[in-house]
């Protein structure tokens, strides 16, 4: 293949629009990130379309999780971190000085690799985001619990034991509870960091079905190392390699007609 391995990206170039013609909710604009001396994200520019599932794939250490955590500035917790460039949520800069990261994170919730429910009741787990927001009205909390647990397809399994400890649930249930917790505050974007990597196949397929359902209400960005999963759930797939975004396109195109040799090599299993 004669195409250059890496997309040329001039500083003046705007991030390309999301593939498939959807409206861009989140734009990453010439984003660079360093952990100390390590340049972990190199000039990443991309857009995420509204109510689409975008999968970030790539070999270990390619920066896909780092990119995901940069979107809601969860990386701020790490010392020695430096960034350049910007991320925009519906046109609002995320990295500008004075941005209230707390309200930002309320607009972009996150589900983690390993299910991490709080050692509290199921009910309290779901309403955590509302409680820290100062919500005390019982009807509002009750409504959010039912809506979120239904949204996360776990309501029928837990509705009779809402006040039991969340730690009594199975791994797959816990992960769906974490998804319910993430959507309880009605975020715009749902970030998922390998949400199925600690689950068994049955629980995984439940969560995958759920992700496809969630697309109706949320913009979903999912990091996965499982290419079949990306192919199953994602509308758009982005391939990252060594801290760069190599290629981004509709999932069928990426898997069937990759434009770059690295993408093809990864998809066909030659590395990663």
């Amino acid at each position, binding site marked *: 293949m004669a195409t250059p391995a890496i997309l040329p990206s001039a500083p003046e170039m705007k991030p390309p629009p999301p593939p498939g013609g959807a409206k861009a909710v989140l734009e990453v604009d010439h984003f660079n990130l360093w952990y100390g001396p390590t340049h972990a994200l190199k000039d990443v520019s991309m857009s995420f379309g509204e109510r689409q599932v975008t999968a970030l794939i790539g070999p270990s250490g390619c920066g896909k999780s780092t990119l995901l955590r940069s979107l809601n500035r969860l990386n701020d917790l790490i010392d020695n971190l430096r960034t350049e460039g910007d991320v925009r949520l519906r046109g609002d800069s995320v990295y500008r000085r004075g941005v209230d990261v*707390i309200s930002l994170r309320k607009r972009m*919730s996150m589900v983690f690799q390993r299910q991490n429910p*709080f050692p509290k009741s199921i009910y309290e787990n779901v309403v955590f*985001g509302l*409680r*820290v927001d100062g919500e005390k009205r019982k009807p509002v909390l009750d409504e959010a619990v039912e809506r979120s647990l239904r949204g996360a397809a776990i309501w029928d399994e837990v509705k009779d034991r809402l006040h039991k400890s969340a730690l009594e649930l199975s*791994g797959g249930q816990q992960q769906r509870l974490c998804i319910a917790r993430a959507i309880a505050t009605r975020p715009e974007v749902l970030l998922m960091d390998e949400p199925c990597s600690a689950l068994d196949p049955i629980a995984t397929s439940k969560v995958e079905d759920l992700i496809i359902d969630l697309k109706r209400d949320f913009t979903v960005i999912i990091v996965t190392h499982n290419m079949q999963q990306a192919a199953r759930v994602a509308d758009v797939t982005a391939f990252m390699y060594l801290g760069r975004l190599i290629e981004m396109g509709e999932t069928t195109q990426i898997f069937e007609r990759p434009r770059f040799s690295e993408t093809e090599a990864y998809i066909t299993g030659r590395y990663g």
Partner: protein
Amino acid sequence: MDAPTRHPPLRPSPFGRLFRDGHPWVWITRCGTALLLLMVVGIVAIVAVNGLSTFWPRRLVRYELKDGTVVVGEEIRREVRKVGQASVEETQVFLRVGNRDLSGGGGDFRWIRADDIRATSTPEDLLAFERMEHGPAYGRVRQVIEVETVDGKRRNRVVAEGAAARAALETGMEAAAARREARLELQEGEMDRVSKRQNELNDELRRFQREADPTSPSFAGRKQALDARKAALDAEFEPVAAKVRAILAEDRRHLVLLEDGAGNAFPKPVPMSQILRIDAVNALSFPGRVGLAVGRFWRFVTEAPREANTDGGIWPAIYGTVLMTLIMTMFVVPFGVLAALYLREYAKQGVMISAVRIAVNNLAGVPSIVFGVFGLGFFCYLVGGWIDRSFFPEKLPTPTFGGGGILWASLTLSLLTVPVVIVATEEALAAVPRSLREAAIACGASKWQMIRRVVLPHASPGILTGMILAMARGAGEVAPLMLTGVIKLAEDLPLDGEAPFLHPERRFMHLGFHLYDTGFQSPNVDASTPLVYSTTLVLLGLVLVLNLGAILLRNRLRKRMRTGVF
């Protein structure tokens, strides 16, 4: 060319295997644990056996010696002792003979030679008397006497004698106990209230004399008013005092004359109110003995000490220890947790914070007496002195807060134990999984909300471990208390029914100091030695109870925090 590959044998030499598998090390760890257990069990056993046997009613034995004398006492132990310059070994019996007033200044303990004993018996009519003063008496009741005043002359009339005397004494003791109760109610109630008001008025008078201007026109009037109030209070005090005096006079009218086991009368009759209990220990059945032992233990832990802490109970010391430990915990836990939170969660980790951490850890190694000196200088003299000058100037030079007190002692001990809490809390905070912190942050919690709602609850079992260690350390500490507020005998409890209920400036009694006092400062070593064991036992039990409470709480918290199932 190809050297044959050497495969390691599947059955290595037993010796090599011994060391590879580490069996010797496992054995060393086992031995270490066993040794430790042995020592702990040994200490507890010694304390428990000696401490509890004090309460067991021993038989009163009547020894007839070969020279014809008769000795009555409780046998404490037998020992083979070396006697004389030739160091001849002979068996001797150590007896508690009581009757201190009869032996004329001698102790109430005595050694006799086993060889001198001609015969022993345990007559059932021998009685053990518990008395307010002079320790126990052993013997019989000879006469019950009533003092009469005839023609202005005091005259003793024998009411009962011999066999009837004991019954008469028991009736008299009941009456005496009722009188004592009535007297205490008067003294601790009305008399105390009036005398407190008198003290306040005296303070006011002193202030008036110091500050008022004698030339001012209102001076005479105000002085008159104060004097009138003083007179009114004195008039109020007098009838109560008269009642108390009447009760005491009545006490002096009912006397009893005891005799020892050999039949010798005591030098003089004593008021019946001096006798607290009579037990016919030799006539007791086994359940009776158990009941008496339980009763003695109960009185030991619920009554105040008597006779320079060589007799009576230790209730004020238990009370002081528990209260001091609780006040200390109330200070040390919030203080330590806040410090640890800052060090671990907020401060930027660096040389400075490491230095602070090392300093905190080293604080745990500073001798406790140094903390005592610091507490005395800083809390008692500086802070307490300032409080006295600012709020209680009329009482000076008598210090209110400017001397030792339970508040200063608790604060000193919380300084002493704060490193334990800080270290334990820091460990607990560090052990909160990163995933939980991220989950909270990703839900839109601020850092403080994350700490408050996720980190602290998760760290609470660890924080409680720190609290348990601090309490155990604090409850057993003595040296700093000796400088900052502990006292040999406290008149009032630091927490009582009198407003404002908690008296942070009061000195208090403490089990640890009580141990030191009975063990090393006692005027009567033989009588106080068993009390040392009993007090230690109570202190151990108390620390155990405090710790068990905290451990139960911790386990309940841990259950809630247990990790998920997979």
